[in-house]
């Protein structure tokens, strides 16, 4: 049975796992629960592999593989949203990332969550997340994609608030949910607009219609349909992928268990925005404005988050901000038209960022729940595997060749440099790369080097079980070799990844302009520059945190305002609190609650009730309780009816005596 004809199996398996665990798992021992969860995810991973194999071995005449229609979900007038799944090159990449990384993280979780309560709940949520994520990446129309989109949002909410007894956790969950709503609002508006324009939301038909040259190219500052639609979609993307100005939920999302941070808030869900932008690139390329906005926002976010990451002390928060900044990179790539580069970075980032989080989790596990880097140090000898894997991940993210991060980031910077007016973007990107390597190595040094700053008597540092180390190693390997597929591009060869995605993604416009040789030389140069900047960051970190450990304090003192700003994350949360939340609270308390609800609604209801009571009080005196009087009343009624019939022929139909 070719799995391609039964794509639904891939998302269905996790759903089943989730249902089984969620409904029955409560009483079961952990082994059964995680065997169910792992079985579901693993099977869907295998199915995905098989599907991909079949897809890649598909004869060219079959391509593009048509969307599989399973059933009509919504049919209203001309609107039709079916449960359609599709698979193409882009989906293949996402599929591999989601199922593969997801599977690894499931394995990791069995070890990490072993001693937590609500074990079955955790895995049920996790499987549910897998289901929705798969729906998201495999959906063949925006509506279904939106289902997955909302579903992953829900799961992220559930999992951030997993320790719902902790107020901070539940608050973080709510924050994530609400902030995402804002983005989703834009996303839905975008969908509506698209439907109004194209009368369909199926990708194939919609993009076919959109790529029709009749739609002109909307220049900068020209707000046509495409621009507005794309900006609205991008609004959703900023919400989901934590871009400016909606990034605020992601750092708080670190309240959730570490595997969740790794899977949802680093590897898969937060990249959904990038995926959507890439998926609908045909719309984006129509609109200069949208592209620029995407690029600028991405770039700004990248730098912004990186700068905040410099001074964070919570290990997971550092990683969170680094995630935000890396996502910024991806959007930058998309913005400059290098969608394939963006997706490429998405993939590599999934590897090494997942690895980073898992390693951080392992560290936290080792430290017995401690997350503050200032209370760590000197762990390199105690937890070797964690240390090595994390080091690899750090090198990867810092962009040290030949690790994965180097290639993807280099591709992005290169394409950013190439488009006209792209140099500022390139510069900021480069600076961000420097910062990235700096704060990552800062993390490494604070965590693994120097003197232990924790109480050795209480904290017994211990290496994590293999169920956790296995995924670490696997991901480490992936983060090393993950980028090599694009390696040939560096020395002049074809870019396999880009050419693989070519059927789906158009290559960046800028690239064709410059001739190959020049482009190649330029790329080499840029690569060297990037590596140099990364090394510079590394060196700075080394100098600050190994040579003069006292130095950072002094610097913090000397540049107090900057430092405070960074530590307080540019006061963004406070800003939002002041500008949005407070007025909202005021309105809802004083207007909606005190006036509308209490005064108006309750008033009306109670008024009606009391009115009824008073009327009843007055009328009940006619109820003498004497049957004979009632009889008389009945007779009177009959008389009235007869009289009406008798004297007023017009009323006969009304009283039913039709002659």
């Amino acid at each position: 049975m070719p799995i391609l004809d039964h794509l639904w199996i891939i998302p269905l398996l996790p759903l089943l796992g989730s249902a089984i665990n969620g409904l029955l798992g409560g009483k079961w021992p952990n082994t059964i629960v995680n065997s169910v969860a792992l079985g579901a995810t693993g099977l869907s991973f295998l199915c995905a592999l098989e599907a991909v194999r079949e897809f890649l071995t598909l004869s060219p005449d079959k391509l593009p593989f048509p969307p599989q229609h399973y059933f009509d979900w919504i049919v209203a007038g001309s609107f039709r949203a079916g449960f359609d799944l599709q698979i193409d090159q882009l989906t293949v990449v996402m599929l591999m990332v989601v199922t593969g990384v997801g599977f690894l993280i499931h394995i990791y979780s069995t070890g990490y969550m072993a001693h937590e309560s609500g074990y079955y709940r955790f895995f049920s949520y996790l499987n549910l997340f897998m289901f929705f994520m798969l729906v998201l990446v495999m959906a063949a129309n925006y509506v279904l994609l939106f289902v997955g989109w909302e579903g992953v949002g829900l799961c992220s909410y559930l999992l951030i608030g997993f320790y719902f007894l902790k107020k901070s956790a539940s608050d973080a969950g709510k924050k994530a949910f609400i902030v995402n709503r804002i983005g989703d609002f834009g996303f839905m508006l975008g969908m509506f607009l698209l439907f109004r324009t194209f009368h369909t939301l199926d990708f194939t038909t919609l993009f076919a219609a959109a790529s029709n040259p009749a739609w002109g190219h909307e220049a900068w500052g020209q707000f046509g349909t495409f621009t507005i639609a794309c900006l609205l979609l991008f609004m959703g993307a900023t919400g989901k992928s934590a871009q400016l100005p909606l990034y605020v939920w992601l750092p708080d999302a670190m309240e959730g268990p570490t595997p969740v941070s790794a899977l949802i808030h680093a590897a898969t869900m937060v990249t959904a925005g990038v995926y959507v932008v890439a998926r609908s690139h045909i719309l984006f390329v129509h609109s200069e404005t949208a592209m620029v906005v995407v690029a600028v926002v991405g770039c700004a976010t990248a730098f912004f988050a990186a700068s905040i990451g410099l001074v964070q002390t919570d290990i997971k928060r550092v990683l969170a901000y680094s995630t935000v900044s890396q996502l910024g990179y991806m959007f930058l790539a998309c913005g400059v038209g290098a969608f394939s580069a963006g997706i490429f970075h998405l993939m590599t980032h999934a590897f090494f960022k997942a690895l980073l989080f898992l390693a951080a989790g392992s560290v936290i596990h080792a430290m017995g729940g401690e997350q503050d880097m200032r209370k760590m140090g000197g762990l390199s000898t105690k937890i070797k595997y964690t240390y090595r894997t994390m080091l690899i991940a750090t090198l990867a993210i810092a962009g040290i060749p030949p690790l994965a991060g180097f290639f993807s980031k280099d591709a992005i910077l290169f394409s950013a440099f190439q488009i006209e007016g792209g140099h500022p973007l390139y510069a900021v990107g480069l600076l961000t790369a420097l910062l990235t390597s700096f704060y990552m190595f800062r993390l490494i040094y604070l965590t693994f080097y120097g003197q232990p700053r924790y109480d050795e008597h209480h904290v017994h540092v211990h290496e994590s079980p293999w169920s956790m180390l296995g995924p670490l190693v696997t991901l480490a390997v992936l983060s090393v070799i993950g980028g090599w597929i694009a390696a040939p591009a560096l020395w002049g060869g074809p870019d396999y990844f880009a050419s693989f995605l070519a059927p789906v993604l158009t290559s960046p416009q800028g690239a064709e302009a410059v001739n190959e040789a020049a482009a190649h030389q330029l790329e080499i140069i840029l690569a060297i520059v990037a590596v140099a900047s990364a090394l510079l960051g590394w060196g700075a970190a080394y100098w600050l945190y190994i040579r003069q450990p006292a130095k950072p304090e002094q610097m913090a003192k000397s540049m107090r305002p900057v430092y405070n700003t960074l530590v307080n994350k540019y006061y963004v949360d406070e800003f939002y609190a002041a500008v949005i939340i407070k007025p909202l609270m005021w309105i809802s308390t004083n207007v909606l609650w005190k006036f509308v609800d209490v005064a108006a609604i309750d008033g009306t209801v109670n008024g009606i009730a009391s009115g009824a009571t008073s009327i009843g009080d007055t009328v009940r005196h006619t109820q003498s309780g004497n049957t004979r009087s009632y009889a008389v009343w009945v007779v009177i009624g009959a008389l009235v009816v007869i009289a009406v019939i008798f004297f007023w022929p017009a009323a006969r139909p009304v009283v039913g005596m039709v002659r």
Partner: protein
Amino acid sequence: MTPQLAIFFVLAALAVLGALNLIIQRHPIHSALSLIVVMIALAGLYLLMGSEFVAAVQIIVYGGAIMVLFVFVIMLLNAGVEERTNVSKLAGVAGIPLAVALLGFLAAAIARSNESAQAGVEAGTLANTKEISTMLFKDFVYPFELTSFLILVAILGAIVLAQREKS
């Protein structure tokens, strides 16, 4: 004065007298008996009109079942002569005029009614049992089923009502 007319007047007089007696009598049994008389008279009238089936049903169901039930209940409760309480002023005052007015209206309506009412009813023109049954089981089959359901419900209700709660 055809014989039918004579029979009609006899039966009509019987019916009216029975109805009057129903009102005059103070013991429920006598009222019941007079009502039975009315019903039998009506049955006779139906026969006179030639609808014998209805006449038979009238006697079997009304005379044989319903009124027996009444008599049975009266015997069961050993109902005595009704007492002349006058709690309801309204009934005392408005009763007679209302009834008269009602009668007047009905009479007027009939007097004013069109020629179809003036035309005579010759006995046995139609309504042989077959016709009624075909109509009942073809055109009115759903109402018929409904009535059967109604009867069922009524039986249950009667049982529930009348049974002494076991405590």
